[in-house]
């Protein structure tokens, strides 16, 4: 398969050249931040580090970390490095965890972000002949604006659908022959399910590729979406704190995401000690924005647990790869002292022949955590006998216990009774607020 690149010199640059480029950018960026962001200057001063100590990427470990707590403390302008008059845009996180992040962009920041998204679209096979349906939410959420901008840069005919109104999504997809779909994986699965119900076969659907991100998803879910929609499904990674989607993207190999490391310098650290871990080890992903002007976070701890690897990729890109995050530490639940990632539940469901439509409900009764999982009944498994349904519930609970080490109460519920938000799926309801 012939490969296309959006910015070939960067995407296929030799490792030595890339490191040299990163070093040059880092030195400049640290000066820019030190001079313009008192909040970070204080952190550096406390650590006894000055911009002169940073001579290249080998000195990166000397810099202090930024965390989500810093973003909250510095809200809204505390980490801004440019005068507001030089900024042209803000984007914000969904704030579902109650910790809204507001990020600022200069025109150059927007441009570079859109370039990153364009790289992702081209890596998924996109060209200016494609019709790109962007069904991420538009607005403060970065998904819609990011992919919209990337799609423009590639020259695709862009359908700015935003999320929701599935009937209209399907109508536009068919009438205008959309070939690329960009949305959250849960919404892609929902669109796929709806198409299937309406009698569409994968070969009837004009789509050829999908770029799905903004929430964790498993390989099983990828296979599921690929089969239902008859497409190749590519992962894309990003976070509002660093720009939005496009920090990393998948190529035709579909084995991890290339990080746009000319803009985002990645490290893996031990989340407990903060120590930098060697390549290939699992730990918390940390990003340093090398080019951002308005909101340049240095050593930002993403709370995503993953692994980095650099090796020859069949797509020809030399950009370092990150594995699909094993879960965000934010998503991780600690139930009866055991770490539980919703993605583990999803894996069990797909293995057992269910759709990944579930909801985890955690509460506390008599000083013990209660752990319930509601799962939508699968048409294949449903029978007319109560005892059979109870057996299915027990089998699911056992499979989850094997995976997690703790026993959930599994309830099978009617199809489509679990609310699907058309943006991000609400998978976890944690009622344990009293401490």
């Amino acid at each position, binding site marked *: 398969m012939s490969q296309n690149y959006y910015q070939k010199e960067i995407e296929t640059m030799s490792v030595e050249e890339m490191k040299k480029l990163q070093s040059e950018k880092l030195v400049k960026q640290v000066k820019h931040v030190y001079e313009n962001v008192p909040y970070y200057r204080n952190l550096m001063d406390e650590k006894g580090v000055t911009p002169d100590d940073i001579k290249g990427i080998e000195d990166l470990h000397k810099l202090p970390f930024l965390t989500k707590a810093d973003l909250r403390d510095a809200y809204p302008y505390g980490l801004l490095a440019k005068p507001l008059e030089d900024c042209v845009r803000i984007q914000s996180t969904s704030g579902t965890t109650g910790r809204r992040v507001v990020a600022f962009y200069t025109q150059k920041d927007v441009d570079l972000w859109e370039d990153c998204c364009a790289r992702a679209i081209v890596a998924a096979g996109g060209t200016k002949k494609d019709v790109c349906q962007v069904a991420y939410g538009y607005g403060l959420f970065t998904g819609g604006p990011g992919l919209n901008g990337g799609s423009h840069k590639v020259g695709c005919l862009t359908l700015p659908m935003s999320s929701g109104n599935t009937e209209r999504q399907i109508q536009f997809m068919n009438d205008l022959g959309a070939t690329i779909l960009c949305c959250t994986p849960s919404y892609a699965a929902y669109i796929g399910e709806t198409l299937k119900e309406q009698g569409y076969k994968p070969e009837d659907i004009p789509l050829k590729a999908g770029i799905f991100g903004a929430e964790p998803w498993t390989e099983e879910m990828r296979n599921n979406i690929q089969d239902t929609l008859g497409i190749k499904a590519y992962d894309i990674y990003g976070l509002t704190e660093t720009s939005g989607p496009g920090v990393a993207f998948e190529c035709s190999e579909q084995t991890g995401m290339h990080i746009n490391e000319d803009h985002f310098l990645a490290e893996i650290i031990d989340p407990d000690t903060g120590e930098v871990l060697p390549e290939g080890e699992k730990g918390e992903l940390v990003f340093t924005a090398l080019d951002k002007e308005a909101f340049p976070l240095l050593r930002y701890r993403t709370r995503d647990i993953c692994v980095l690897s650099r090796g020859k990729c069949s797509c020809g890109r030399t950009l370092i790869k990150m594995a699909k995050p094993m879960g965000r530490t934010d998503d991780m639940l600690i139930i009866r002292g055991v770490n539980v990632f919703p993605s583990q539940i999803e894996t069990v469901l797909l293995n057992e022949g269910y759709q990944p439509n579930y909801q985890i409900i955690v509460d506390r009764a008599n000083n013990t955590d209660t752990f319930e999982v509601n799962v939508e009944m699968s048409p294949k498994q*449903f029978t*007319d*006998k*109560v005892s059979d*349904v109870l057996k299915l519930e027990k089998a699911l609970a056992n499979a989850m216990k094997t995976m997690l080490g703790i026993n959930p109460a599994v309830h099978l519920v*009617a*199809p489509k009774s679990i609310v699907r938000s058309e943006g991000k799926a609400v998978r976890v309801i944690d009622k344990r607020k009293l401490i």
Partner: protein
Amino acid sequence: MAIKQLTVFVQNKKGTVVSVTDILAKNNVNIRALSIAETEDFGILRLIVNDEATAEKVLSEQGYLIKTVDVLGVKIGDEPGKLTAALDVLDKIDINVEYLYAFMARTEKHAYVVLRVEDNQTAGTALEQAGFHLITEADISKL
């Protein structure tokens, strides 16, 4: 020999049965017999209707999880001991009844029992040999 039973998976919460019967009523489907097996979480609604195909279609369209299974409908005289006699027939040939429910016809002085067994053929034959009348799909629409 067997008749069709519609089986609907529903949540065990207020209003779910009504929403099912309402859909059937709006589509002119008449319910002959109905039984519910429930647990704390869910219920399984079992229905014998005059027009099984329409019922299945309209409920599926509304997103209900439906399964159609074959059950036996046995006509039983409206007098004490008749049900026991029928069950005895099955007991003697070691056929386990998963569940059963009864209904009355509007016109005749008869009770009917819906029996769910694993082997409809063997159970049905045994009942007929013992003199019981099994109802058919055609009978249902006339009841």
